[in-house]
């Protein structure tokens, strides 16, 4: 199942435009609605570029990279893990629950220049780095 998920997500590609991002988010947001906290940064409508990340055990797909983000630009992460976990965006001060199998959507806006890690806690995995320039 993990493999199937990975394949289908790989087909979506890493980057999407704002328009296609918002259309796909409606299909992924429903399972995670119960766990989504009312933070201003999590929203149902994806904004900016969208990156989809799948976690299968200790494997992160696509492999971690550094993603550039301009100051003021938005970036949406759609993270799906095969196990319950916590998603933590360093520097953006965001912690969000991941429910097994359900996509969690988080949108951030580049503010202070620097490199910030996006990670999960159980097990500790680094998903990507966001380089705000």
């Amino acid at each position: 199942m993990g493999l199937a998920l990975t394949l289908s997500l790989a087909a979506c590609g890493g980057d999407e435009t704002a328009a296609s991002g918002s259309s796909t988010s409606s299909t992924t947001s429903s399972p995670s609605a119960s766990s989504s906290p009312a933070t201003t940064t999590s929203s149902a409508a994806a904004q900016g570029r969208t990156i989809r990340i799948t976690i299968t055990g200790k494997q992160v797909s696509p492999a971690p990279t550094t993603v550039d983000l301009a100051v003021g630009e938005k970036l949406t992460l759609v993270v799906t893990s095969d196990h319950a976990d916590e998603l933590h965006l360093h520097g953006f001060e965001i912690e969000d629950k991941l429910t097994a199998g359900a996509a969690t959507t988080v949108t951030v806006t580049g503010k202070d220049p620097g490199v910030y890690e996006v990670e999960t806690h159980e097990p500790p995995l680094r998903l990507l780095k966001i380089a705000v320039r």
Partner: protein
Amino acid sequence: MSPTVAGPLAVLPAHGVGSREDLPLPFHLLLVGAGLALVVSFVALGALWKQPRLHREDGRLLPIMVSLALDSAPVRAVFVALSLVITGWTLTALVAGADTANNPVPSVVYVWLWVGLAFSSMVFGGYWRLVNPVRWLRRGLLAAARIEEDFALAEYRLGYWPAAAGLLAFAWLELVAPDNADLLTLRVAVFGYLLVSLVLGLAFGPAYLRTGDPFAAWSSLYGTLSPLGRRADGRWVLRTPLHGPLMVDAQPGLLAVTSVMLGTTAYDGFSGETRWYSFVQSSSLPAAIWETAALVTFCLVVAGSLALAAVLSARLAGVSPRGVASAFAPSLVPIAAGYLIAHYWSLWVWEGTHGLAKMSDPLGTGANLLGTAGLNAPEALIAPGFVAAVQVVSIVTGHVLGVVLAHERAVTLFPRRAAVLGQLPLLALMVVYTVGGLTLLFSS
């Protein structure tokens, strides 16, 4: 790193220091830095002095009143008292504080004690020997038991070896250990350190606390770069950053401790490489095993490469290789300092300031005892362009100082004819360290 606070979702971010990292060094600055390092090295080889020129008696004497003040008991007592207050304050937060991201202890231990102590020692000299709380704890215990102050069970002969082991252990705790910002981990580490230091201090006497204590070695070796120091007769002088390292005695373990100083910082740069941590975190072995192995390997590679270069240099110069590696080990100190500044400058500004803000509320009660709660790091000091400049300048400066130190040692140790040839392996190694350091900043 996961928070242990109760509740469905922690509002506070997880523990840990360093949530923000520097942007990669721009490539053109990598080229500029590497080019400068190469040019300086070869110019130095040909153009620098041919006779030993830096002496232990050099330096501009401080005004007598300043010297007297620096050596006076009341002034020293002020610094010791300040250190003991900070220690007590931190221990209170460690024992009775809340286990949340607002607890100041992780910032104090990982940022103030590690980076802050090194940076301040580079400016003011190695002051940890004076303010080390273990020294005064030991003295207090001995006084209470009416035992002489220089009491020791055995003569101290281990030199810098305990410091090398202790600094490696500290780096492991900071860079590898899981949950290293949790209060439980910190309690074990801090009280473990205090206990071990006290036992060793009681067993070996003040000599251990001067050389073997990890933070004393960390502070005094980086402190050799300070313009403020004591010349050979013990008088306070202002001098170049070259004079201090040349006065470091070649005690056992000197190569080990300088290698740990450089190797651990280099490992920290390397551990942020995407391909490395992708491999580590998805490996079937626990990540800590790979990370520990890499940390130790970095230190061994530094020690091994310097030893090899020193032996080659000795061969080319036609002298015995015995003790040559230790003689050149002090030239690693400015290089390690350059790495340290480049790597931790923004962490120091950012987390050091936040640490001061958190210290205002040691027990997590919302108090603002020091009035520093709202303190924010000055943006100008961590602006990306400024940080990149600090990185290149510190690495290249460290390299230049290292090269000149190695040159001075070479003309001291090697016969005059062979001194230039004998420096080649060491110079090549320093260029490798410097270009390697710049590459780590560029690619991670």
